């Protein structure tokens, strides 16, 4: 191994260690943070409600594309009656959790990182420390929990709107039978399919919130430092989402 790549590996290991330690402290801080539900609710609002429009729009168009592509594919086999099932399966298991996570990283994750990074850069976290208030408990934990709760909720909304979009195109425009569309879906989808989507979105919620909070908390306390940390949040979140998606999909087969 060359000297340079050894350095790189060591640095990556060090970062992983720091993140793991931070995760431990974060979890420990989550317990007392639960005593302040107002802070957590405010963060669910920040991470969730503010991403609502972009999630709903993306869900609608994703569903509409599924309706078109699904119809085009299935009609070649004379199987357009399966359109509802096909759309629901793709949305529940893949597109819902993954696309919501990617959008969440870009919208809420970056906001979290830059907010916490700026709090660090302007001494707000230090000021809390000196006022004998633990910033892990007051700043980091509520944001982590807020993201963790918001992402699964957003995913559910994405899926519901996506189904509506698929129905809009498949049933209203392409003329698939309304009753068949929904009843086929209902009978073919198993609880396991729903569970897969839920587990994925919860895991993504935890990992993406951890990345965003961790990058913000450890950002260099300067304008450039915060900018770099925000970029790292998007990159790390996207890669982790796709990587974990594969791992979880394999685990559910």
């Amino acid at each position: 191994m060359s000297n340079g790549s050894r350095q790189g590996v060591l640095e990556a290991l060090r970062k992983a260690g720091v993140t793991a330690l931070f995760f431990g402290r974060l979890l420990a801080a989550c317990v007392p943070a639960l005593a302040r539900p107002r802070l957590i609710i405010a963060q669910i609002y920040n991470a969730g409600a503010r991403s609502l429009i972009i999630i709903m729009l993306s869900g609608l168009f994703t569903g509409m594309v599924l309706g078109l592509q699904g119809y085009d594919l299935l009609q070649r086999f004379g199987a357009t009656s399966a359109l509802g099932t096909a759309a629901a399966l793709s949305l529940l298991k893949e597109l819902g959790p993954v696309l919501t996570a990617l959008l969440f990283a870009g919208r809420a994750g970056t906001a979290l990182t830059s907010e916490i990074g700026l709090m660090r850069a302007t001494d707000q976290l230090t000021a809390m420390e000196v006022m004998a208030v633990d910033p892990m408990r007051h700043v980091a934990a509520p944001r982590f929990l807020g993201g963790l709760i918001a992402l699964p909720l957003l995913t559910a909304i994405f899926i519901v709107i996506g189904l509506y979009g698929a129905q809009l195109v498949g049933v209203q425009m392409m003329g698939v039978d309304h009753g068949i569309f929904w009843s086929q879906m209902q009978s073919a989808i198993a609880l396991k399919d729903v569970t897969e989507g839920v587990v994925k979105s919860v895991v993504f919620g935890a990992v993406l919130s951890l990345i965003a909070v961790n990058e913000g908390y450890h950002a260099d306390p300067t304008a450039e430092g915060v900018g770099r940390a925000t970029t790292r949040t998007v990159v790390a979140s996207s890669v982790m989402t796709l990587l974990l998606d594969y791992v979880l999909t394999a685990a559910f087969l």
Partner: protein
Amino acid sequence: MDDSQPTSHPAPETDAVIDVRDVHYAIDGRPIFAGLDVRVRRGLITAVMGPSGTGKTTLLRLITGQIYADRGQVSVFGREVADMGRAELFATRRRMGMLFQNGALLTDLTVFENVAFPVRERTNLPEPLIRNLVLTKLEAVGLRGAAQLMPAELSGGMARRVALARAIVMDPEMLIYDEPFVGLDPISLGVILRLIKQMNDALGITSVVVSHDVHEIATIADHSYLISEGRVVASGSPAQLAESDSATVHQFMTGSAEGPVRFHYPAADYATELLGVEKG
């Protein structure tokens, strides 16, 4: 050091609220303090002066337990900071209030909520009481009318005054001010100066004021330290410092670039660098 006169340490050890003894501290191998001795006595206003970058803010970070000395002792309220666990450190911090150099207001809260923050975090007082308490402190710094503004809507000087209200809202035993006068207009400066003096006189609050404003601080300080190059180069009452014949003290008091205090951050020789010749 020969110019460390006039030094007066009549302080009996017992009434020292802060006792910094022979502290050594380095950042990335660059020494910031090399044998620093500072004592803050109960009920007095102690000024810490020194050129920019000497480590005045670093000293406050040592005192509040954000960083630890490499060598030497830092004790606060009679207890060694390095020996404190997290709970004791937090308990000690509750006894002090600190004004940050840039205010450090929480940007997502209004002015009112910023001042109320320590009260809400540490007590279970009923809302009307919190309101009274906060408005009284805001009135004292002349910003009661700004209670509903967000920190982003304040000027630098206003933000500092709000931060001061926040620092005093819990009536701490000791107040630490990091550059309270920078960026204030003469009127606010006078108000803040009097406020520091008043809280000291009326409530007996021990105060540590870090400042470059030699003349402002001289009007209220009981005891001053002049720090340069990692150690105390002079200390005493403002009158004693003013009469000092030490070159360092004289240079600092008159604001000259020439003298024993280096104005320049350590650098390669100017001429050499301009000519682009690396020093062998």
